[in-house]
């Protein structure tokens, strides 16, 4: 574990190392820690929501606080937990899987992380500075434009900054995959996780600008008295919904596609088989991404767009079931005839199949427009999207973490605790969300602070809350696992008998990843070498000097400038003196950009001699 290895240098040095690092593996750790902490925040919010709904007409939290909780739970889980945890996996695996020494833009990689972190911090500062946003994670106008206090301002500014970080991160992975692949690593030899990360990055590139635009309009309405969403002045509130879902629908594929990649890698590794129908799986992924952009208005079936629009979006949405089905059957066929090892990583992947199939099945159901008039905005939809986001994304993140933990930290997570985590989470998950399908149909709209005694919704809500307690317990076990594992034995370089290039490096890899860039001779390159009896990857180049980028404190400072400026933006509506903070922060960030542009930073070289001295 690199933290342990560097501890000899003292806390200050380690801290400085992480504040300035541009190494994708350390940035992955940063994403994991930050995303993990936000995941705990989001989880606590979820538990408070479930406690409030444990019995009818409960007054555990007030209506206002409840609305803040649901808003922050959704926003936190999507933007501050799921996205960074996915970025953690992408950072740890993508460069290694394509045989690269780093990402294309190491500096931007760090900048992306710090922007996300400071954006998330702004958002969460709202809890302590006068109230969190309370207009739902979707922030529908005019509820969001007219919401009193500064909660929604925090939402706008926080998401804008975090979103910029995500966009930068996405672009970085696009360029990395296009430009940094090792010799022989053609597109059709890339592991499915890299493929999925690549396609998710395309989605980020096209979807996040829509969010950016939407947030700008909302920001100007709230802070500078424009009227984009003010109907009395000629604005239109439906425009927000279109902008939000043009981003928001692709976002759910950004959240699931990389994990489809994780499952593909995990299944083929632990079934000891190459992925069944590789080409079809790749094209199914591309097709899902493409269709993901065409269907945003299925979130708006009840808005009153008319039957023509509703039908078109309904049918387009159903069509996504076809490539998704191809993937599900592709995974099953991968397992078929395999020699399957079931360990914690594999358990999450196996648990995903029935869970996600149910989520996909209810997905087609909610796409059925005239039936959706009943499902829309009820607990049926809550159940559906938790089935896909938890049953897909969160299961996938856990699978990926158990799978790549040895690569990230040089340790293998404890198997017994891993299985305990899985089973309690899996049971809790189905207990919580399955029954919510029925709650919705029985007349429980989502975002309800209370339901009434006598509405026959008591039992379902009680069971749901009990399930949530199971999930909370599972997460605590996972945290214990991480702590226990940190003192555990060191992991071998290739603990799972892996098939892809990341398992050809040390655990954890050296900061330059590969001493010599590997030569890729086909799909599952490490497996090919193993089958040929080499056991080691053939290098594509003679041993030579390696060029490495220098660390930099500028990304942290740049993000800090925007963080400070954010408070200026938020509070200048109360007192114009805050304009100084707003402009000052922006100027500071601009100065950091100037420094970055003017200073020649050519990095450094690890010489051939140094590499030769290191043990092989």
């Amino acid at each position, binding site marked *: 574990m690199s933290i342990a290895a560097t501890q000899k240098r003292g806390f200050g040095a380690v801290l400085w190392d992480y504040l300035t690092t541009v190494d994708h593996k350390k940035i992955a750790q940063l994403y994991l820690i930050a995303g993990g902490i936000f995941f705990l925040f989001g989880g606590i919010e979820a538990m408070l929501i479930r406690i409030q709904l444990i019995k009818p007409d409960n007054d555990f939290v007030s*209506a*206002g606080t409840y*609305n803040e909780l649901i808003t922050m739970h959704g926003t936190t889980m999507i933007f501050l937990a799921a996205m960074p945890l996915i970025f953690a996996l992408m950072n740890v695996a993508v460069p290694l899987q394509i045989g690269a020494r780093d990402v294309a833009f190491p500096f931007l990689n760090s900048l992306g992380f710090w922007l996300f972190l400071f954006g998330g911090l702004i958002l969460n500062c709202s809890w302590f500075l006068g109230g969190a946003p309370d207009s739902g994670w979707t922030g*529908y106008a*005019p509820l969001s434009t007219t919401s009193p206090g500064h909660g929604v301002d925090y939402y706008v500014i926080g998401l804008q900054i975090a979103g910029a970080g995500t966009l930068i991160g996405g672009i970085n992975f696009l360029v990395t995959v296009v430009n940094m692949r090792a010799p022989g690593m053609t597109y059709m030899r890339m592991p499915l996780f890299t493929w999925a990360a690549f396609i998710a990055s395309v989605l980020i590139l096209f979807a996040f600008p829509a969010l950016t635009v939407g947030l700008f309009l909302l920001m100007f309405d709230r802070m500078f008295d424009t009227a984009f969403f003010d109907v009395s002045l000629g604005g239109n*509130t*439906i425009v927000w919904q279109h902008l939000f879902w043009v981003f928001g629908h692709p976002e759910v594929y950004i959240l699931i596609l990389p994990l489809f990649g994780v499952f593909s890698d995990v299944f083929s590794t632990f079934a*000891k*088989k*190459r992925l069944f*129908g*590789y080409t*079809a799986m790749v094209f199914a992924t591309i097709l899902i991404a493409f269709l993901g952009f065409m269907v945003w208005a299925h979130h708006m079936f*009840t808005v*009153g767009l*008319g*039957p023509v629009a*509703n*039908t078109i979006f*309904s*049918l387009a949405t*159903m*069509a996504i079931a076809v490539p998704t*089905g*191809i993937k*599900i*059957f592709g995974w099953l*066929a991968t397992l078929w*005839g395999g020699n*399957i090892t079931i360990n914690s990583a594999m358990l999450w992947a196996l648990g995903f*199949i*029935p869970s996600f*199939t149910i989520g996909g*099945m*209810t997905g*087609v*159901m909610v796409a*059925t427009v*005239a*039936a959706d*008039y*009943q499902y*829309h*905005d009820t607990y049926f939809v809550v159940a559906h999207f938790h089935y896909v986001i938890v049953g897909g994304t969160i299961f996938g993140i856990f699978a990926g973490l158990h799978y790549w933990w040895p690569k990230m930290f040089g340790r293998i997570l404890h198997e017994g605790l891993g299985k305990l985590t899985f089973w309690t989470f899996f*049971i809790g998950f189905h207990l919580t969300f399955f*029954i919510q399908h*029925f709650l919705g149909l*029985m*007349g429980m*709209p989502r975002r*309800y*602070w209370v*339901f*009434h005694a006598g*509405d*026959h*919704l008591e*039992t*379902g809500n009680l*069971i749901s809350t009990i399930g949530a307690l199971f999930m909370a317990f599972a997460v605590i076990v996972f945290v214990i696992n991480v702590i226990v594992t940190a003192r555990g034995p060191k992991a071998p370089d290739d603990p799972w008998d892996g098939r892809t290039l990341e398992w050809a490096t040390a655990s954890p890899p050296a900061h330059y990843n590969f001493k010599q860039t590997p030569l890729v001779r086909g799909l599952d390159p490490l497996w090919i070498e193993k089958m040929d009896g080499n056991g080691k990857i053939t290098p594509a180049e003679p041993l030579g000097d390696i060029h490495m980028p220098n660390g930099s404190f500028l990304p942290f400072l740049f993000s800090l400038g925007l963080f400070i400026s954010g408070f200026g933006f938020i509070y200048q509506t109360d007192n114009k003196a805050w304009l100084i903070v707003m402009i000052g922060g922006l100027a500071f960030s601009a100065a950091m950009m100037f420094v970055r542009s003017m200073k020649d930073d050519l990095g450094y070289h690890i010489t051939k001699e140094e590499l030769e001295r290191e043990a092989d």
Partner: protein
Amino acid sequence: MKGWMGKFRALSLLGLLALVLAGCGRENLTALKPKGYGAETSLHLIILTTVVMSLVLLVVAIVYITVLIRFRKKKGKEDFIPKQVEGNRTLETVWTIIPIILLIIIAVPTTIATFDLASTKGEKDHLNVEVTGNQYWWHFNYKGEDIQTSQDLYVPTGEKVYLNMKSSDVIHSFWVPSIAGKMDVNPENENTMYIEVNEEGVYWGKCAEFCGPAHSLMDFKIIAVSPDKFDQWVSDMKDVDPDAVAGSKTAKEGEKLFQDNNCMGCHAVGSSPVQVGPNLTDFGNRTKVAGVLDNTKENVVDWIMDPDSIKPGNKMSGNYPELSKDEASKIADYLMELKPSKVTPESAGE
């Protein structure tokens, strides 16, 4: 692992049992026992898609369980290396085409139902009600009838009623699960949907679009009565003389207090249109106070004394002079006597 599996079974059984005990939810609130045309249409599609999708789930489950039983690592064969299969064109084609066929089976009735439910063909020949969504109450204006009500919407059974819906503030959504699917109520444009109720009854309505602190308390009712009773109700509601209502002494005092304390600034009794607060013409006949409390005098008094404790964020709190309990009680007496029609929720079988 066996122990966990056992626990899982026990828990799923418990869940299933609970579901059976709970039935399909509260009569006249659940979408699973439709009492109106829209809800029936939706339920047919819900059942169709559930059946089709369950078939898919079944196939996946069979393959999945088979895989888990047959292809787990076995003792003595730990080092077995399976055949590295590339793919199978036939299989892949089959699992592409079958889902497409299944989707077409769903898509056709979906399209027909969608156009059916959006049809406005008979709008002119039927009753039209202007619905206004407000934080956190509903207003109904019967077009061409000069009738204004709030919270309780009376409709005749067996007839189409067209609802022209608009919001006065944020977005709401009109939803009576057992009658029809929901339709958003937007501030910028009028959305139209029709409802058709099959049998008499009081149906629970909810606001389904997140609209602020009291979102979960924005309840309303559809009261469906036979066409005869509905005609009776219409004629009763047309000739309401607000001043002639109060009978008892306290109610008369209450009426005066109601006027003196500027309640009329927001509320109206009779058929004058309202801007800020609910129309109170038939308050005495209402099923609920503020949408959520039983219509008893104590509840009315509590509501008048401190609305915010019952419905957080409502626009009545703090907008009238403070009242003593005695004054509130008199106003309550007056309001409870506002019963212009003999056709009440009770006559719908409640």
